[in-house]
């Protein structure tokens, strides 16, 4: 009798779990299908490289792609050296349980959870107003750099940390100075981790909208310098769908471009991670 009810229970649970998995998959397939179905027909060489006309209803996304690249370039240009330096400090210049190291790590953990809109407020106050950069690609890129720094540092630090102790000891035994050890032994060994960290940060920066609306602004012209306002792909989607009547077809196409870029980024990072079998040591 109890065996019978056990079977019923087991069967019901199996059904529930498969239903839950299906319920998770359906919206995903729906979203992707919808983007492909409605976006693909508007996608063309012309769309990707020409300038938007009529507030984005016609034309393309050329200048917006360039602005996105510049934003991401500023962001990575600042975040990568800073992230590398901090990660080096945390893994090579302090003990794991050192107070300063723990403080820095803790503050970065909290920073990683700060909502992007708050970074937007901060960027607006510091970069646009106090430092006087105004609504510009520079302000937006610097704001993004603050945002991606925690995830970048954590990944890079982990990739330094998994390098075996023997390598450092051997270097010290050979009488190599610290800077030579770092340059010739630690950095090359940590390259896959650095790449994965950089790529994760890149993905985050490209996907961001809320932090950019009031730091890099809305302008959809071709940017002439870093001090010009520029609109990223994500902001373009937001603007087309919320503020431009009849902007949906091009919003679909832009979303398709953005999501494809992100998928490529995501795939290449997991490819690098699995190739160097680092995946189980890196934070997900």
């Amino acid at each position: 009798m109890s065996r019978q009810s056990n079977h019923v229970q087991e069967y019901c649970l199996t059904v529930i779990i498969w239903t839950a998995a299906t319920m998770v998959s359906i919206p995903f397939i729906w979203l992707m299908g919808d983007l492909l179905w409605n976006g693909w027909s508007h996608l063309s060489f012309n769309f990707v490289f020409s300038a938007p006309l009529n507030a984005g209803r016609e034309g393309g996304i050329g200048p917006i792609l360039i602005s996105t690249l510049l934003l991401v370039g500023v962001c990575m240009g600042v975040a990568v050296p800073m992230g590398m330096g901090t990660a080096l400090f945390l893994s090579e210049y302090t003990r794991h349980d050192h107070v300063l190291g723990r403080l820095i790590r803790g503050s970065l953990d909290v920073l990683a959870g700060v909502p992007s809109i708050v970074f937007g407020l901060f960027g607006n106050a510091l970069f646009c107003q106090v430092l006087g950069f105004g609504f510009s690609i520079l302000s937006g890129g610097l704001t993004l750099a603050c945002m991606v720094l925690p995830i970048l540092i954590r990944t890079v630090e982990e990739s330094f940390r998994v390098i075996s102790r023997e390598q450092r000891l051997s270097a010290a035994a050979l009488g190599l100075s610290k800077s030579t050890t770092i340059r010739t032994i630690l950095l090359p060994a940590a390259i896959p981790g650095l790449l994965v960290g950089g790529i994760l940060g890149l993905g985050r920066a490209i996907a961001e909208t809320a932090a950019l609306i009031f730091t890099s602004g809305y302008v959809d012209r071709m940017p002439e310098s870093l001090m010009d306002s520029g609109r990223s792909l994500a902001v373009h989607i937001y603007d087309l769908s919320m503020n431009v009547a009849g902007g949906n077809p091009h919003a679909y196409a832009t979303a398709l471009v953005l999501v494809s870029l992100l998928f490529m980024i995501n795939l290449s990072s997991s490819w690098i991670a699995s190739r160097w079998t680092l995946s189980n040591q890196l934070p997900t």
Partner: protein
Amino acid sequence: MISSSSNISPHSKRDDLLSGSVRFLALTAGGLLLLVIAFLFYESWPALHHIGLTRFFSDPDWYPTDNSYRLTSMVWGTIFASTGAVLLASPLAILSALFCHFYAPPLLSRWFRRMVELLAGIPSVVFGFWGLVVLVPMIGHWHPPGPSLLAGILILAFMIMPTIMLVAHTSIAHVPLAYIHSASALGFSRWSMMWHVILPTTKVGIFTGILLGLARALGETMAVLMVCGNVVQTPSRLFDPIRTLTANIALEMGYALGDHRAALFMSGLFLMGLVVLFVSMAEGLRHRNTYVATK
């Protein structure tokens, strides 16, 4: 870190330069959080000074141009939307993590996980756009007006599900194999094994995931901004449009001046406080959890 008290390796200028610059960069990165908090305080000071904390809850309504700054209905909007999303997403996420480990055939399990990872990487503005063009019209068809608390809950749930599921998945993967083998040896059914062995050992990990999901839902801006309708009111039904604190900042930051601007920074500070609380709780739990797992 390898070091000894009396260092005999050659000491060069380059070493000093490197250690100095690395220390400087690390201190800058570590100080960034303080800088963010300091700027939020600095910018919201006029609001705290001129308006005072109590008026954010006692003023008649949110009319910042008429010097009326009630945030209550937006606080409710934020709370309803994010708790609704967590309540909806957590069971689904836990069940799908169990699905991945114990039900799906290996190939399907790998693909399912890969799909959830991709889902986690989709930008919020794309979720918001999809919600705006697909979900909102559907809800509007069923129960007008369409842009509503319900749409916000659904989109947020969809967005935080991957976070919770991936954390739960990792902590299930860390359950010692011996536990599972013992359970099988004792003749546990799959159901009792999951209920009496897996869930109790992973509950801290799963709770961490839920906290991280909640933090993400509270701070999410674009998606809720696009699907919730942004009417300042305390919702009484699922189909009422709402405005969250984050959406309020995004909508009004463009033209806000003076006390209005300071009030927006104040709500940002408040949001940040909440999120910091949840994230540090989650981090604390995570450290405890790894300790238990390695013991």
